[in-house]
């Protein structure tokens, strides 16, 4: 186990370094300097600006400087908003995004699992068909469309919820639901199919023969095994929620990290794009790692050090 964790940590650092490198050189492959489109600046000002951001140095020197500052967790300044650093943007945006992400993940996991269990218990019954129709719709409708429908119906027509921004718990409900529908549908389908498989096993029949109630069987015997496949895709789901949050934050005008990332892209503010990308990637890699470890703990049959062989 310890050896596995060390190996994984090492691989994580390598992956992150590759992401940093790809991001850095991609951003520098874009023709033109970020100051070109600005209003006419004099030659001297232009040179001073470039010197200030090390843009007059050769690319490899810039790369070394960037890696060096990353090692001290410094993502550098924003070029377009010179008063704020990328670190400040992340510091301001991340808590909001995390709040949104965690709320929607919780909604997705809890309601997805409940929906999946209900469908599995009534396999081929009315509830099963209803839950699965719901799930297929959840997968098919992109989250930005779901968000618009929710705003249109619940916020504009019925005026139950506020339309946008991020101020009170009431503001959180619509964006979280919009972000949660896709993952919820995936979880519901996965829970259903693995639950059906588990419920047909002999040890469940034994439990039933002992006279346990359905509730006891599900919670004590079936759920733990049925949830293993769900845990394996949690990492991917976190990635989905994370990228999904870009559009959701844009639609609901939520001041999260996605907003800074999208603004960075629209302004071609390269330090911001690089900083947020690296931060997002590091976060995702960490999540995947945690999911793998959790999987090993929950399923003793998995020998972690043998994975990937």
């Amino acid at each position, binding site marked *: 186990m310890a050896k596995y964790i060390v190996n994984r940590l090492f*691989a994580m650092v*390598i*992956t992150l370094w*590759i*992401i940093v490198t*790809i*991001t850095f050189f*991609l*951003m520098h*492959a*874009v023709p033109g300097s970020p100051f070109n489109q600005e209003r006419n600046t004099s030659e001297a000002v232009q040179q001073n600006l470039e010197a200030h951001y090390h843009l007059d140095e050769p690319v490899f020197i810039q790369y070394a400087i960037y890696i060096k500052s990353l090692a001290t967790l410094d993502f550098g300044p924003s070029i377009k908003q010179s008063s704020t650093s990328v670190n400040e943007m992340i510091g301001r945006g991340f808590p909001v995004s995390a709040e949104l992400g965690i709320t929607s993940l919780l909604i997705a996991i809890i309601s997805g699992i409940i929906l999946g269990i209900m469908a599995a218990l009534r396999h081929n019954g009315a509830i099963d068909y209803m839950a699965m129709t719901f799930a*297929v*719709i959840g*997968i*098919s*409708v*992109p989250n*930005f*469309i779901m968000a*618009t429908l929710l*705003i*249109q119906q619940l916020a*504009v027509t019925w005026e139950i919820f506020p339309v946008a921004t991020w101020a009170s718990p009431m503001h959180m409900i619509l964006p979280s639901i919009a972000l949660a529908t896709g993952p919820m549908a995936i979880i519901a389908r996965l829970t259903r199919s693995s639950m059906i498989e588990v419920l047909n096993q002999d040890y469940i029949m034994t439990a039933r023969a002992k006279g346990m109630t359905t509730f006891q069987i599900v919670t004590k015997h079936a759920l733990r095994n049925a949830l293993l496949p769900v845990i394996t895709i949690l990492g991917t789901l976190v*990635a989905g929620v*994370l*990228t999904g949050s*870009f*559009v959701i934050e*844009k*639609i609901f005008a939520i001041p999260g990290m996605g907003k800074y990332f*999208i603004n960075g*892209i*629209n302004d*071609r503010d390269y330090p911001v*794009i690089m900083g947020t*990308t690296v931060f*997002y*990637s590091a976060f*995702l*890699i960490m999540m*995947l790692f945690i999911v793998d470890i959790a999987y090993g703990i929950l399923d003793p049959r998995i020998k972690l050090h043998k994975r*990937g062989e």
Partner: protein
Amino acid sequence: MIPERKEIKQELSDDLFLPLQNPSSNAEMIAKPSISYWKDAWMRLSGNKLSMAGLVMLVLLVLMAIFGPLLTPYSYDHQVLTEGNLPPSSEHWFGTDNLGRDMFTRTWNGARISLFVGFMAAIIDFIIGVAYGGFSGYKGGRTDNFMMRIIEILYGLPYLLMVILLMVVMGPGLFTIIIALTVTGWVGMARIVRGQVLQLKNAEHVLASRTFGARAGRVIRKNLLPNTMGPIIVQMTLTVPTAIFAEAFLSFLGLGVQAPVASWGVMANDGLSVILSGHWWRLFFPAFFISLTMFAFNVLGDGLQDALDPKLRK
């Protein structure tokens, strides 16, 4: 009491006593007529109503993408500024947008772009994935190990984030979208093909083929690929909606195709900005058809997964 005996009268015709025709030829035959893998898969797929509905929807969507824009007298970029934001009518079936362009024509023109992106992404993923995964799995050993390391690293990259970065660098446009989607997208296909090839490469028919001196390329093409087509097709049907979704997502962020060409994502984005002014048709039609396409591909993919899985074969 003895029941009254009835007289049994049965006519026995002479042809009952003829010798069997050619008794030796199929006396041993006890099997059902043999059904090929594809026929069997098709039979199971056609039994799945939802998947067949998905297939029919897809055929209709493709037909409409081809012929839809021809059904109206308008072109997708023809502006009539005096007829902006008209609701659906007999004149404009899906209404018009703010520049007076016919939404019906634009919707089906958008279908061409979205479906084109989806299918191209799937085909390119297929080509790269099969070549890479097939080679890696077939070679095995160190080559395989090295090639899989690369895959592992690429797999760890956040997909949409990388696509967004590539789009920033290459600039918006139809072909850059396809390139960005495939640069990161082929990895999944390569993994599947490699896994299948690893399983199959020591099967008897492959060994026989190699004993006869077949080269790697021939063995992969003739012996291995046909047997891995099931999972590959399933993966492709799931790649198409992912690509369509990614394109809509990128267009939504302003990184998609550029005006006057419009994909569904671009149209939905435009429609979103006017949803509060009540022009519902501007969002509804592109949104509805994105969802319908995703739905059709997803249910078809599910059905194919069941139909092509040899484990489920009866």
